[in-house]
């Protein structure tokens, strides 16, 4: 691992209100992610994994501490800077796939480029081929299996050559075999693209593939292992 980390969380705190109750989703979380590294966040439900991923994905801001992604301070960056960061430097994979239902596979994959005013049909089709969906490019998400949908999401997350990929329980909605295949694909593509990957998972096998595993409980980092 060389150079400055692409993701840096320094004593980060994030609270939510749930009705009258104040929930401390993250408490003093510190974490770094270097270029090309795969880090897994593990822990029980509600431990703050998704909150941490949302901060790294620049769709949320911390209440305390500092989150830096590709040199951008998430807490102080303008909305436009966050949008630019998401468009160019971050890819996201969700547990529930979150494909746009009325766009085809090809259109879903090209969405990050289209939102940035760019076009790269060769790259889009190449990625679709690489995730094994060349024959499904014109299909809609509702016509795909869960595994196919998640493979589409993986292609979408990588199409714009992000420096960081954030994956929130990417295998959570898949059977173990399909889940393993998706993780294998994600890791392979990440490596070939040179992106860092931060993923949240309950699955020990998935965590086992990571360079580092960070364990969270009640919003705090309670363990690390390499």
């Amino acid at each position, binding site marked *: 691992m060389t150079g400055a980390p692409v993701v840096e969380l320094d004593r980060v705190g994030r609270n939510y209100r749930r009705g009258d109750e104040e929930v401390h989703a993250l408490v003093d979380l510190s974490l770094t992610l270097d270029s090309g590294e795969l880090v897994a966040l593990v822990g029980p439900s509600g431990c703050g994994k998704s909150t941490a991923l*949302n901060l790294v994905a620049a769709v949320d801001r911390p209440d305390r501490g500092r989150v830096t992604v590709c040199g951008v301070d998430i807490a102080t960056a303008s909305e436009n800077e966050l949008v630019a960061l*998401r468009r160019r430097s971050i890819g*996201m994979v969700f547990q529930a796939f*979150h494909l746009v239902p009325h766009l085809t596979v090809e259109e879903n994959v090209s969405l990050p480029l289209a939102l940035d005013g760019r076009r790269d049909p060769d790259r889009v089709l190449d990625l679709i081929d690489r995730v094994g969906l060349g024959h499904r490019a014109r299909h809609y998400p509702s016509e795909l299996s869960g595994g196919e949908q998640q493979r589409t999401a993986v292609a979408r997350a990588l199409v714009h050559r992000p420096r960081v990929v954030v994956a929130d329980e990417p295998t959570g909605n898949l059977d173990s075999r399909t889940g393993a295949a998706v993780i294998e694909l994600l890791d392979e593509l990440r490596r070939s693209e040179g992106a860092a990957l931060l993923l949240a998972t309950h699955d020990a096998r998935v965590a086992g593939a990571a360079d580092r595993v960070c364990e969270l409980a009640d919003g705090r980092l309670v363990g690390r292992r390499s």
Partner: protein
Amino acid sequence: MILKALLLRPLLRRPWRFLVTVVGVATGVAAVISTIAASRAAIASFAEGIEEVAGAARLEIASPGGLPETLLAELRPVSGDALVVPVVEETVLLLELGDGVRLLGVDLLLDAEVRPVLSGDRELPDLDATLLGFGALVSRRLAEDLDIAAGDALSVSIGGRPRSVEVAAVFEADGLSAVWERVLIMDVAAAQELLGRVGRLDRIELVPRGSVDLDELRVRTDALLPDGLAASPPGERRRFAEQMLASLRFNLVALSAISLLVAGVLIATTLATSVVQRLFVVSLLRSLGASRARVASVVLLEALGIGIVGGVLGVAGGFVGARLALASVRFTVASVVRGIPASEIRFDPQLAALGLAIAVVTALAAAVLPLMEIMSVPPLQGLRTAPPQRMRTRSRLATVAVLLAMAAAAAALARMPAIDDLPIPALTAALVAMAALLVGSGLLLDTLARLGHAPFARLRGAALQLAAAALSAGRRRAAWAAGSVAVAVALAVAIATMVSSFRATVEGWTTSGMRADLWVRPLAAGTGVWVGRLDPEIVTIAEELFGPETADPFYSQTVAYQGRPVSFAGAAFDVVRFHGSVPFPGRDSAEVFDRAWRERAAVVNEPFATRFGIGEGDTVRFELPGGVLEREVVGVFRDYSRSHGLVVVDRSDFLRFFPDAGPDDMALFLPPESDAGVARERLLEAVRGRFLVEALDNRELRAAVLGAFERTFSITTALYLVTAVVAVVAVLTVLLTLVGERRRELATVRAVGGSRGQVLAMVVSEAGLLGLAAAAAGTVVGIAVGVILVKVVNLQSFGWSLELVLPWSSLVTMAVWVVATCLVAGLPPALVAARMQPAAVLREEG
């Protein structure tokens, strides 16, 4: 719990959805109620008021031009079996009110047994004040409106001559028809003197005593009457009057029906959207064990509530709208019959009940289809994310086939003849064309999305592409909105096409037909509607000032031709034969009148020729009070007033059969090189202090005609507003729903790099595309409906040939207006979407 989950909580948490739906229902109901209430008020006193004013009278004797008073003596033999009641009636201009009122001259002593207003336990006025001098009874409502009381003076204009009337008493009209609110009741002798009709009556009424057989009384009465006169029930006069307004009434009813259509579509849109968006909760409740019937009853209960609240608001808004629309409708009525006093817009419980019923029935009906749709979805499927609702090829072809069938049916209906002079098939064709918009709106959105969808990667503007795709995916919801906006656009475009054609035709008509230098008419009411006639003396004054060869007074009476009411008129053929007057297509007007004058012939207007199948060379035969008149028709002229038909003979013929009660108006053809302004001043100076008249020069006259025309069609402005309201409600309802349903998708777009601006642009683009689709389809269908209105409905209803002139600038304005309105309506949902916190939504939605 089901009630809470499906109805109460959503209502409390998202009250705007309920409010928007209620506004949709209220707007639709208000459109219907205001049209009906305004039409009724404008027409009521003319036809419906006849029997109301007739009271207990079961028979009456009337004749165009009136009856000699001596007839009362002839009827003495039946006075044992019936009260014989003399009546004088005229519409006069009440200056303090600035509007026409009905002046009713009756025998106040006898009348307590005839009219409800003077009978029963009502307090009778001080008859001395009424019988001596020009004392009049006025209604409490009129007295309050004018802030007058017994002993105060009122000014009326009769034949342009201002006269003073004393308020003898104020009568209560509670519980009686609104007709009585605009009536001055006087003693018959005073009324005769005031109206300059001493010795003449307008009718004689018979009120049978006890159990006298009406048929026998009628036979005995007829035997006492001179030839050409007969006793008939007041209802016959009403039917006769109604015939004059039949076309107009039908068209007003048709307008109400179209309002109802727009209202129905709007209500259906809002309700359907409101119901379909519960799919998830309904599926969840059903999967947890709620019965179909229980869920359905809650959804229908909501529809009922929305129907009632929207109905009540719509009825209230409708009566307010009717007050605003009354002036416009009165002008339309005035194009057929002059100077009808309008009734006040009063709250009518029956009409209110109708409005409420429309709201409730339409709301329930609108809820049923979408309810069936969401109930047909298996619960577990309803809990899953809905796949895109793209149309299948078979559905597209089937829709195209239905649309083609509808187009063919509309074309066939438009070619069919009128039924009883009413353009029922043509209007049905117009309705079919508009219904096609509802059928085709889904296909239109689907096509639009396909056009923008296929080359997704090649086209610029991700937001626009996402919008097109999303609109197609939400087609079932969006189609309702597009359909209702398109129907409103079509209606506005059709009316605009008719008005533009009408305007161009009337402009041509005024240019070629209005040649007089000055035009004299009675002082118009504050509402702009003319009331009464000119005093005969004004003709004499004009002839003395400018020479008898300059004055063309126009006299008219309503008479029967083949049992139907037409206007029978007299004009100065000896004058207009030198100048020409109304336009005869393809012929010189002066030449036609010269021939009519030389051959003692008649000319007829186009509606008369159309209605009775009369052309040049035919003979018209009238049975008039003084005998039979037969005249050859030597010309058919263009005329855009008296749609029931007008026959014009020389004034000498007219005055042979009718007493000179004064002309309706008078044209003056001044000698060459005369200054019309100077001439007008001379005329007004000569009548100053004695008569209240208006004199317009040629330019002013044309402006006045076009002004009256503009006022008649000022309802088109209202249509623009209705279209805007429909667009706002429909777009707002549907887009808020679509945005609500697509929270996860919108959050995803944000998460993968979409900015707030792009999400905002995406939703606003959806609104714009929806508006564009609706404007395009609505304009095309609107033009087709406009052509039907111009070329078929007008001809069949009014006998008017109109030149078709498409209002291109108005059409463009309308399209821009609709798209702009939709874009504005799309802003609130777009802001909701843009403000969405992607992290929170993604966490919430899983």
